[in-house]
């Protein structure tokens, strides 16, 4: 069977739908509506037109030869999801789920967000479609991604700062689930990553796989062949599965996911769920998970809010187990160095999340050699991270106050 044909609910032994009964009816409703939309030409045409006239698709690819000089001379090609409207790949998924919300006849959307990119994308789609919107965001993240909080509010969304648990993405998801239980009749939950209960991993992957479909064509047009490797950062894993999917059945194309290693995978402060976790159930699906002996979720750590999540999408867990994709760690320092390098060699400031993939590509280039071509998903732009980078590199003038 083609690897691309897997539509869940299980990917190997991962995935499924481990959810409270109170949410099952809503999830069934989404699953049924989405199943219809998958093959509904009018739905797909509407989404395509939105992507053309609103998202700005297809996104371009950019070969970065000055950056690649630091990667053993390998060719490095970036898929520019940072150029999408709202500045990341998240819009691809959100427009799909917003269209689905309309089909469900619901008038309000809720979403969780880590870095704020999915929250901003959801607030954007809500504004576009005239939906009410509430976004749940961990208090830690509202502080380190203050700019995105303001963006969401500017777009008319309500932002709820979540103060329970570790006050990051996983707790934002918990709170969104709690809220969804109480408002399920009017509200659709727009889930941001390729995790959670079925059908979310399938649906989010389907809405993101356009990244790889476009890039596969574009790279062949540019180089005359398929890339040797595809690299992406992995938190929940939506941009990674989005760029991987079109290549799953190309056995000569190696797929690399880069997990956030924080201070290092041998320290307690990282977010490498596949590298250092073990299978468990969190947020509705079975997958790799950072947890203690008792199954209590361990708080993840990463400088990148978007990768700061102790779980990972089930399709990645499966791809790791069957060795179709390899998952490697990138530390905070490696990511920040790559962020600065791309900024200075190419004039492109990447999101810190995407910088994890760039750092991985620098090592991969040396490993695979100068004849190799590496396609990297530049999943988001770094405007939101300027404050973090400014602090990290000491770029602020003394005495100047930064928000």
């Amino acid at each position: 069977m083609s690897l691309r044909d897997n539509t869940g609910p299980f990917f190997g032994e991962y995935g499924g739908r481990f959810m409270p009964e109170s949410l099952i009816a809503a999830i069934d409703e989404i699953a049924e509506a989405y199943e219809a939309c998958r093959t509904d030409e009018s739905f797909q045409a509407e989404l395509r037109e939105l992507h053309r006239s609103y998202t700005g698709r297809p996104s371009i690819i950019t070969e970065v030869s000055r950056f690649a000089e630091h990667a053993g001379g390998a060719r490095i090609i970036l898929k520019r999801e940072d150029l999408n409207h709202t500045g990341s790949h998240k819009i691809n998924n959100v427009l799909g789920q917003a269209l689905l919300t309309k089909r469900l006849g619901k008038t309000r959307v809720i979403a969780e967000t880590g870095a704020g990119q999915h929250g901003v994308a959801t607030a954007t789609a809500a504004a576009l479609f005239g939906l009410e919107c509430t976004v749940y965001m961990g208090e830690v993240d509202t502080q380190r991604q203050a700019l995105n909080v303001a963006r969401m509010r500017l777009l008319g969304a309500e932002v709820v700062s979540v103060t329970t648990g570790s006050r990051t993405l996983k707790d934002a998801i918990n709170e969104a689930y709690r809220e969804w239980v109480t408002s399920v009749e009017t509200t659709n939950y727009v889930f941001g990553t390729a995790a959670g209960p079925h059908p979310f991993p399938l649906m989010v992957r389907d809405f993101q796989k356009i990244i790889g479909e476009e890039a596969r064509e574009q790279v062949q047009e540019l180089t005359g062949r398929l890339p040797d490797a595809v690299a992406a950062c992995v938190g929940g894993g939506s941009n990674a599965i989005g760029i991987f999917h079109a290549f799953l059945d190309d056995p000569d194309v190696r797929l690399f996911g880069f997990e956030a290693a924080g201070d290092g995978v041998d320290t307690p402060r990282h977010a490498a769920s596949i590298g250092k976790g073990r299978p468990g159930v969190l947020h509705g699906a079975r997958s790799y998970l950072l947890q203690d002996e008792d199954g209590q979720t361990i708080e993840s750590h990463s400088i990148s809010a978007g990768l700061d999540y102790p779980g990972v999408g089930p399709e990645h867990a499966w791809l790791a187990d069957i060795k179709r994709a390899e998952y490697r760690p990138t530390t905070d320092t490696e990511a920040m160095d790559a962020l600065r390098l791309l900024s200075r060699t190419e004039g492109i400031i990447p999101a810190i999340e995407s910088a994890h993939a760039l750092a991985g590509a620098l090592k991969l280039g040396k490993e695979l050699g100068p004849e190799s071509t590496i396609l990297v998903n530049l999943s988001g732009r770094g405007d939101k991270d300027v404050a973090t980078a400014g602090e990290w590199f000491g770029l602020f003038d003394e005495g100047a106050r930064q928000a």
Partner: protein
Amino acid sequence: MNASLNSTTVESVIQRRRDAGSGALVGYLPVGFPDLATSVDAAVALAENGVDVLELGVPYSDPVMDGLVIQRATQEALKQGFRVRDVFTAVEQIRARVDVPVLVMTYWNPVLQYGVDRFADELVSAGGAGLITPDITPDAADDWIATSDRTGLDRVFLAAPTSSDERLKRTVQATRGFVYAVSTMGITGLRTDLDAAARTLIARLRVAGASTACVGIGISNPEQVHQVLEYADGAIVGTALVKALADGGVSKLAETAAALSAGTTLN
């Protein structure tokens, strides 16, 4: 099933109260809050003050079905170093002191990581009656259904106002002990009005074949207990008890339990 011959099974205790013209009071408390020893004393105090069935919660890092009061208590228990194995210690000590059936309410991952069989065997040894599993449904619980069949433990699944008739039927078939009817579309917490949805849900569960069904979520005073027992076999109270324990210790908890229990005999 030999467990069901025991006079203190969950279902028999509830049925006995119902046959006597009233219904049962089911009381929830988390293990390890404010500490393990006090949580045992607190559970015993519930039993001594009219609570018919105990529901002991396993503190978990990601309790998506719990409101703030219970979240705070379970996070405190985790901060105090709660371990899953403490549940068996608590059940054993409680059962040594009071003859009341003890169900364990747990999110699924702690059971999965402990080992479903190992968890069940140790619960049986400790004298526990079974599990309430709020974040899995029968269609996602093959392993637990097999294990509970092997051990005879009760398995309490939840039913919601939004559940389809077809799902209610399957839930009733899979459940042993009682069906936990979620009163309203919400998470645990105090509510001033009980949703009419609960009454409708219980009626639908009867049609689906439920012999024993209890209502939980949002019940906080004797009048609500009384009101629920007009149509349900039991009333489940959690947040109000946890709040009493947090605010006034075991003595305040005992008072609150006694008052709630009076709700089972109001006219």
